[in-house]
């Protein structure tokens, strides 16, 4: 191809890529713009005539027409549950992954097999008995019911074990010579070596917990403890008229995670191929 034709085809490619990108972010843009629109224009006009924080005020302070639901509190609930669960999943993933990949002890194979079995076992069958168990334990309608079952991720263990296996044994041996304990080896040597994949694990695990719906819908009834995702899902029907505030709640639900992701996106592209390869 001549230089000119090549330039033209690159320009066409960028045009296409940008058009597709616009399509991908359109729903986010729509959500944001409608949350700032005057209420008369929500879902009636694509680009509103004025922008304001009216919907957010209603959401946080409450309007005259209806009792406001505890939106801000729901946001806090989501953040609390997602943060606790994600931290625990990463820490437990590193510790157990280390035990299974570096240490040798009797029963290690059995545990590895159990993990594989659990990973491939259809979780849907466990939904109802897990709920019954939560009830029996007296945890129904508590924060713990959302947190406890999620503290350990077999996926995180599996991924860490795979990654740690590729770290040379000498690194660990020399740390042991220096008198480092196992936990110090894990968190001061192994996890820093796995920095890139750890970022990816954080992102995937956090995102997964942040948007959970079915489980949280089942185990928590009290609006003060509901996550934002559940609260928003239950608002679809009766509060349909208050589209503006619902969009504002959607923004509160969606944009923090976009922000977290964009902050780490530099590492994301380089690391993600280590995590998902065909």
């Amino acid at each position: 191809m001549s230089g000119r034709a090549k330039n033209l085809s690159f320009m066409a490619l960028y045009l296409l890529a940008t058009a597709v990108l616009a399509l991908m972010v359109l729903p986010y843009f729509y959500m944001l713009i409608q949350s700032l629109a005057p209420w008369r224009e929500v879902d009636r006009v694509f680009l509103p005539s004025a922008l304001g924080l009216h919907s957010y005020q209603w959401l946080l302070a409450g309007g005259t027409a209806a009792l406001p639901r505890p939106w801000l509190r729901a946001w806090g609930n989501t953040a609390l549950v997602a943060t606790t669960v994600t931290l625990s999943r990463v820490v437990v993933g590193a510790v157990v992954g280390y035990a299974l990949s570096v240490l040798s002890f009797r029963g290690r194979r059995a545990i590895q097999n159990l993990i594989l079995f659990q990973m491939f076992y259809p979780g849907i069958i466990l939904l109802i008995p897990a709920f019954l168990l939560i009830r029996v334990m007296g945890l129904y309608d508590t924060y713990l019911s959302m947190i406890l079952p999620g503290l350990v991720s077999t996926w995180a263990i599996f991924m860490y074990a795979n990654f740690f296996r590729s770290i040379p044994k000498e690194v660990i041996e020399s740390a042991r010579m220096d008198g480092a304990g196992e936990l110090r080896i894990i968190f001061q040597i192994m996890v820093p070596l796995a920095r890139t994949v750890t970022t990816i694990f954080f992102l995937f695990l956090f995102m997964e917990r942040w948007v959970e719906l079915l489980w949280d819908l089942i185990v928590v009834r009290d609006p003060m403890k509901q996550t934002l995702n559940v609260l928003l899902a239950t608002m679809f029907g009766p509060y349909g008229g208050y589209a503006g505030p619902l969009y504002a709640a959607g923004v509160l639900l969606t944009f923090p995670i976009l922000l977290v992701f964009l902050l780490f996106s530099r590492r994301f592209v380089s690391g993600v191929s280590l995590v998902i390869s065909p």
Partner: protein
Amino acid sequence: MRWQKELRGWLLASPYFLSALLFFLIPLGWSLSLVFFEWNLIAPVRPFVGLGNFIEAFKSTRVHHAFFNTYKFMAIFVPGVLAASLGLALIVQHLPRLKHLYAVGFFLPYLASGVAIGLVVRGLLSYDSPFNEFLRKIFGEAPRWLRDPVWATVVISLMIIWKFSGYYALIFLAGLQGIPRELYEAAALDGAGPFTQFRKITLPLLYPAFYTVLVLAVGLCFGIFTEPYVLTGGGPRFATHTWQLEIYYQAFERFRAGYGAAVAVFNAVATFLSILVIRGVVESWGARKGFR
């Protein structure tokens, strides 16, 4: 010391072991007995019904809807998401600059909560939305979208395609980057044009990525919940009813724990068998074509 080594291993692995015992093995055992009883979650008596729950589920038209709808979603979602994600991967691969920026941008939909996006879709498709007004101006009328059985299925499939194509594109992209450049150079020397190169080099060598995405996408169809839950409730006339909606409805709205668990077993069996069949078909097709 030997026993110290053993103890250390078990101690470090114990968080997993405890959680697996509590939230995997006990529910697993419980689910095995639960399915043989009729229980409303409250009553002290739990009549034993043997295979009654399975027989009822097998005959239930609600379950039939969930079963067949899964394949309807699959028929739209799987080809759609394969084409979309491969397309995105090819775009990113061929961009000379800003590859990362576009890859990250394409991935953003994966971060969306289905509930929040459901809100947007409901708004975009509401009767007097700007989009529908536009359609009415051009065509004289607009579909009733979520109230129409076919359109509702299409809309929900498109939502899921939108969400997952950027994610699957990363798998294709990893596959594309694994193809040696020399192959294309050699092919170009032999006079192969871009289209022939794509057909003879890119597609065959992308087979592992294609296979991974296919299995992921097929499995996904059996777990659809959020989108129909918030948008259609499984309607209209059960057109978007899914396995998970049915399990949720039976167990947590009608409080039929045993029956819901039996439906869940059917869901798992249907998932397992479908993936097995599709894998078998694709593997034998791949073997015949000489892919790996």
